[in-house]
Every structure is written in structure tokens, then in C-alpha cells.
């Protein structure tokens, strides 16, 4: 890269005095609110803010996808607006809806008012008045996406489990995600004054469309490394012994290496850790491990398989 190019780049980038500061400060902030990110997670969150791009978070269930978005909101003091996706979610529930009851009232009022008034009603004029009146912002019900766009202060928008949307509905999101605007036919285009921080989570139950993926930064949240998981256990189960934490994460890791229907996630590690902690155990024995497998595994066939494997190791 030549110097001139570098200069241009520096001018073009004009590193925005972002709300998150730098990847390190992001990581630090997340730590303070109890979410332990690794370098990659912090970098992607930071980039999402810096490039004003949504972050698509994928990964197995229970690895902290939703938690990450919540923690970002918490650390930056922004309001969290959440859109929970499900099959059959439509425009009226995701974007906006006209408050037709209020519109009806408005019409009735305008019909009643001229009769009381002294001057004769000018039909055409009053109708156009009413029409432009009932399709104004006053009669608009904001749903999560529009609420995030219209919010005067910066917000965090969490679109949860986006893979549950129908393929057709997914397209609804595209305008919001790429331009941070919503077009309302009767009203025109509402553009965001403050770019919201957008997080989308997906459990990978189907492939998302290329168009959606292209507009997002991608973050794959896998099971954490052994050290990070131990750290998570220690911070979420205060008072737990060093040795117990190490053994619990070790046990969970060895279970994840098996070919199971549903592998234990971080939240299940935490469940096991707090269970054992509450029981007052100080170390995990194979008998104890087999006895508490139902905390970690959710299928009978998985439990049997893991139990067989754990006892075989002795």
C-alpha cells in the first residue's frame, strides 16, 4: 500500500468516535457486565458498530448468542429492543401497523364536528384533511423494527432466532438491515437518525438467504475454549472451587467430543457446576458424573451412551 493510498484510507475511515471505543474496551465493557468474550467476539462486536453493519450470530444452542446482544446493551447503557421471530411473523408484527380503532374514532369525530359548527361543511376539503390526518405518525403503531429506527436515542436491536422466519418474510428485514430505513407507502420513508446496533441470532435450522448474509457480519459462537469456559463457570457460580470448576469443564468437554444427539452447551455446564456446588461436592467422581448426567444431556439415548463411556474409562 502506498503512502498516498494509506492517507486516503485514513481519511475515508475517519475512525468514528464509536460508542464502543476499541476491541479491547469492548471486551473490557462486556467483562464488567458479566459476559466473558474472547478476542474474536469483541472484535466482531466492535466492527459491527464501527461499520454500522448488523452482526449475524450463529452457533449451537446455549452458547450465549442472545446473551451477547443483551450484554452489549447493558454495557453501553442503550435500550434493548427485541424482536422474537417465529413462523408466521408478518409485517404488522415486525414493522408497523395502523391504529385503525383510533383512525375510526378520528373519522367519527370529524363527522360529528361540522354538524355542530356554524359554517356549512365542505365535503371534499374535509375528507382530504381527514385522510392526511389519519395516516400521520400519530396513528402509527411502531413494532420492534420501526421502533428501533425511530428511536431518538441509540438502541440495540436484537432479532432473535431469525432462522424461524419464513423465507418470504426474511426479505422484510433487508431494507432495515442495509439502509436502516422503513418505507411506509402512506407516509414515506422513515430513516434512522441514530444507527442502531443490530444483532441477529440463528440456530442454523435452515440456511439463511444469501442476501441477508451478505448484509451482515458473521460471528460463529462455538463452544468456548477450556480456559474460557472455566472462567465463565467461576464468574457465574461464585465461590466454586478451582478443582471442581476444572473437573466440570473437563467432563463437559469430553462429552462434547462424543457423538451425541444434543451436545451439552455452556448453560448446561453452568447448571451442572451450580448443582454440584449446591450439593456441596468438592470433586467429581465417575459415579457422581453418571448420576448427574441428566443435567447435561437431554436425550435418554445420549445419557446411556455417555454413562457407558464414562464407566468404561475406569
Amino acid at each position, binding site marked *: *500500500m502506498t503512502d498516498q*493510498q494509506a492517507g486516503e*484510507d485514513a481519511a*475515508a*475511515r475517519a*475512525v468514528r468516535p464509536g460508542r464502543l471505543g*476499541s*476491541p479491547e474496551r469492548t471486551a473490557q465493557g462486556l467483562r464488567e457486565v458479566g459476559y466473558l468474550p474472547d*478476542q*474474536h467476539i469483541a*472484535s*466482531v462486536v466492535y*466492527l459491527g458498530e*464501527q*461499520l454500522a*453493519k448488523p*452482526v*449475524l450470530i*450463529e*452457533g449451537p444452542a446455549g452458547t450465549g448468542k442472545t446473551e451477547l446482544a443483551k450484554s452489549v446493551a447493558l454495557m453501553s447503557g442503550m435500550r434493548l429492543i427485541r424482536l422474537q421471530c417465529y413462523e408466521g411473523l408478518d409485517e404488522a408484527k415486525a414493522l408497523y401497523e395502523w391504529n385503525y380503532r383510533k383512525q375510526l374514532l378520528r373519522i367519527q369525530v370529524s363527522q360529528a364536528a361540522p354538524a355542530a359548527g356554524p359554517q356549512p361543511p365542505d365535503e371534499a376539503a374535509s375528507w382530504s384533511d381527514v385522510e392526511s390526518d389519519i395516516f400521520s405518525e400519530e396513528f402509527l403503531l411502531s413494532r420492534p423494527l420501526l421502533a428501533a429506527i425511530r428511536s431518538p436515542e441509540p438502541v440495540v436491536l436484537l432479532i432473535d432466532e431469525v432462522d424461524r422466519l*419464513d*423465507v418470504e418474510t426474511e426479505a422484510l428485514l433487508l431494507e432495515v438491515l442495509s439502509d436502516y430505513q422503513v418505507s411506509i407507502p402512506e407516509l414515506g420513508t422513515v430513516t434512522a437518525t441514530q444507527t442502531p446496533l443490530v444483532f441477529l441470532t440463528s440456530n*442454523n*435450522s*435452515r*440456511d439463511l438467504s*444469501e442476501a441477508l*448474509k*451478505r448484509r*451482515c*457480519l*458473521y*460471528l*460463529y459462537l*462455538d463452544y468456548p475454549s*477450556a480456559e474460557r469456559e472455566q472462567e465463565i463457570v467461576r464468574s457465574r457460580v461464585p465461590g466454586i472451587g478451582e478443582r471442581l470448576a476444572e*473437573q466440570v469443564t*473437563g*467432563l463437559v*468437554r*469430553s462429552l462434547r*467430543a462424543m*457423538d451425541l444427539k444434543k451436545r451439552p452447551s455452556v448453560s448446561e455446564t453452568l447448571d451442572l457446576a451450580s448443582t454440584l456446588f449446591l450439593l456441596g461436592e468438592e*470433586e*467429581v*467422581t*465417575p459415579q457422581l*458424573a453418571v448420576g448427574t448426567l441428566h443435567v447435561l444431556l437431554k436425550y435418554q*439415548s445420549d445419557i446411556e*451412551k455417555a454413562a457407558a463411556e*464414562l464407566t468404561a*474409562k*475406569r
Partner: protein
Amino acid sequence: MAGRATLAAFIAELRTVGLPVSVSENVDAMAAVLAMPIADRAALKSALAATLVKSADHYHAFEVVFDLFFGDSRVGISDLTDPAAGTAAANGQAAAANGAGRTGIVAGLSDSDLDDLLFRAVLAGDQVLIRAVMAEAVSRYAEVEPGRPVAGVYYLYRTLRRLDMDRLLARLLASDNPADLSDMDRALAAERRRGQVAGIRTEAEAEIRRRLVADRGAAAVARTLRVSLPEDVDFLNASAEQLAAIRQAVQLLGRKLAARLVRKRRHHSRSALDFRRTIRQSLANGGVPADLVFRKPHPSKPEIMLIADVSSSVAAFAAFTLQLADAFSSEFSRVRSFAFTDGIEEITDDLSSAPDIAAAVRRISSRPGVVRLDGHSDYGMVLESFWERWGPQIRTKTSVIILGDGRSNYHASRSEVLRSIRQRARHLYWLNPEPANTWDTGDSIISEYGKYCDEVVECRNLRQLKEFVEALD
């Protein structure tokens, strides 16, 4: 930070590997790299991964290519002497035992001392020292020949053979086996040690790649190395790790396809008008058809019979297909599976009770009913006995799918049996895991069978398998 040219070459290589990198993603990558305030390798990798890789399956391929193009900014050998000496001194043993000075601590060691140092480094979990030792080991044992266009597999083999990973693992396991440890601890420790030894292998691999890149340049090495994405890996030539990756992908794929099929069904739930019942209903309203009555949706749930060649040459392919069929068996009214080599047996019940299909298939492939004489596939024989035993159970709703390479070891083909099967069944498909250009070479008589099939489908990798299953009805 990465120059534009390197970045462009990097993205070109990603595209060649098969990652779908669009122009806008390319632009985003550049913006992301510039937006990172610090310029280290980890930051660069995060920025590129977030903008260029949009599927978890592709991450491994990305990592390999990334290491080729941006690997040289990792700690090189020359930087290592200091920290290595530092940590070794901290350990107090290695440095004292060998009396080595600050420089050349690793290079000056004898072969057995190098083994020893590696052992201690792993024991202490000292990544920097491990890297230094592996760098030295590669210099000594790999005998890298400059300029040779190879992927380095043999270099890796030579290095690891001399370091003797098995012995290292045994030593590590022996070292943390004092009596005071509980069984659980021991099992977990063993697991961890195995992970560490695997880490050494990765480290050696990375080191060799660094040498290759230094020798021939990233683009050239990428050409010889060229990793495939899991969905493009050939079933028949997959390595153990690739098979594991495919197995995972198949599981996910099964779930996705099932979800898609359910959605498709639901969308088409509005079926044709039931004219007779509409008229009947209209009589109540004086002949006005106020309520339209539609026919009940009648999803066609075909019955599937999978006949899989499980002889050693194509067993892996059969296992994946059976696994996939199992994963969304709820979408068919019934899936029956049969396994054969030179004998045939129904294995539906074995599979439904087995937690791990691939293991079950391996077990089945040596069972007496499946192996009649020598375990080399004999298609003619097998087709005939299938027709005799299960032919009457083929119904008009049944689709028969045969999985195999059509290599019958010069036995009689008996393709006329296939014609009878075709006449009874709704569909007859043949999935062949061999590349189409090798069909009908040697003992392959696939086109003779193909005459009677609805279609013979080349099914070499997950992508093709997925396409076939999606089109199935």
C-alpha cells in the same frame, strides 16, 4: 497491515476453494480491516472472518488459506530464542540440564534432548516453547526440498515419525498418573493430553506450511494444498477428519431438509376444490355455493427402500446416505434399508436401534448374511435374492434406491431382475459414488443397469447427495 495485492490474492484463493465471496463482501472486508485500530494478526483474522466467511462449515477452509497468506507475521524462529530461554529458565530444568545459553538453545540440542524438551514443554503447557521445538524439529527431520510443488504431507509424516507421538503421549500419560488422582481425574487428564498431542501435530503442520510459503509463495502453495469444503469432499477419498466433518454436516443437513419439506407441505396445504361437496353444501343455502369445500391435503409420503452396497470400497458413501435417510425418515411413510456385499439382508431394525449409524454399517458389513462368500459385491446374485425375498412387498408407492458403484467383479449382471423391480416400483434410482467418467470402465456395468432405472445419479459428495434428496418425492 496487509497490502491490497495480498488481500486480493487471498480473496481470489477463497473463491477458488469455493467460498461464495461477493463483491460487496470484498469491499466490506477492506473497510473492516481499516476499521480495526490495531494491526496484529488476530485482529486481521477477525476482521476478515467476520466479513468473508458466512457459514461455519467454511471456517476451516478459511483458516488454512489465511495461514498461508498471512502466516508469516506469526512469531518466527528468530524471535523465539528469547522467550524460549526465558520460559526454560523459569522452568529451571531444561536450561540448566543442557547448559545452553541465550542463543541457539534449541538448535544446540541432541535429538533425544529435543524429545525431552518437547515433553517438558507440553507438560508445562508452554505454547511458545512448543512452537520453538517444532520449528527446530521440522528443520531437522522434515528434509524440506526447496521448490518442489508438494503439499507437505510427507514432510509432516517424517517429522512426526521421528518425534514419535505415541511415545510422547505414553510418557505424558505416565507422568500424570500418581496414585492420589481419582479415576475421573485420570480420564480427564488423558483426554487433555490427547488434545495437546493433537495440538503438536497442528503446530507441525503450520510450521511446514510456513516453510512452504516462504519457499514458493502463498498462491503457489495454496494451489497444491487446496482444501475442499465439507460439501465438496469426495466420499471415496475422504480422510478420517473429513469423514467426521461430513458426518456432522449430514446430521445438520437432515434436519434442514426435513424442516424445508415440512414448510413446503404447509405452503401447499390449500388443495383443489372439492366440487361435489361444495354443491352438496350449497343446497343448505338454496343453491348458493357460499362455502367452498376443498379437498383434504394429501401429502404423498412415499415408501423408500434403500439397497446399499456396504463392501469396503463404497461403505462410507452408503453410511452417509443411510444416515441422511434416517435423519428425515419422518417425511416418508416408511424407510426400509438393506445391506449387501455378495449376500443381502434387511437392516432396518439394526439402524433404528443404533445410536451411531456409521458404526452400525461397519458392523453389519461383516455379518454372515451380508457376506456370503468373500465379501466382494456381486450385484446379479444380490438383485436376484432381493427380488425373491422382498420383491412382492414392493408397492406402487415404493421408491427403490440402489446405492453402489455398479462394479460386480465380473459376475453375471442379471439386469432383467432390475426391469421387474422397475415395473412394480414407483421410481427406481441408482446413486453412484464414482465420478461419471469412470463409469463402464473395468468391471463397472452401471449403464447396463442404468437402462432400467429412472435415473442414475452421480453422487460423489454431500452437495450432490443433497441435490438428489431435495428433488425426491
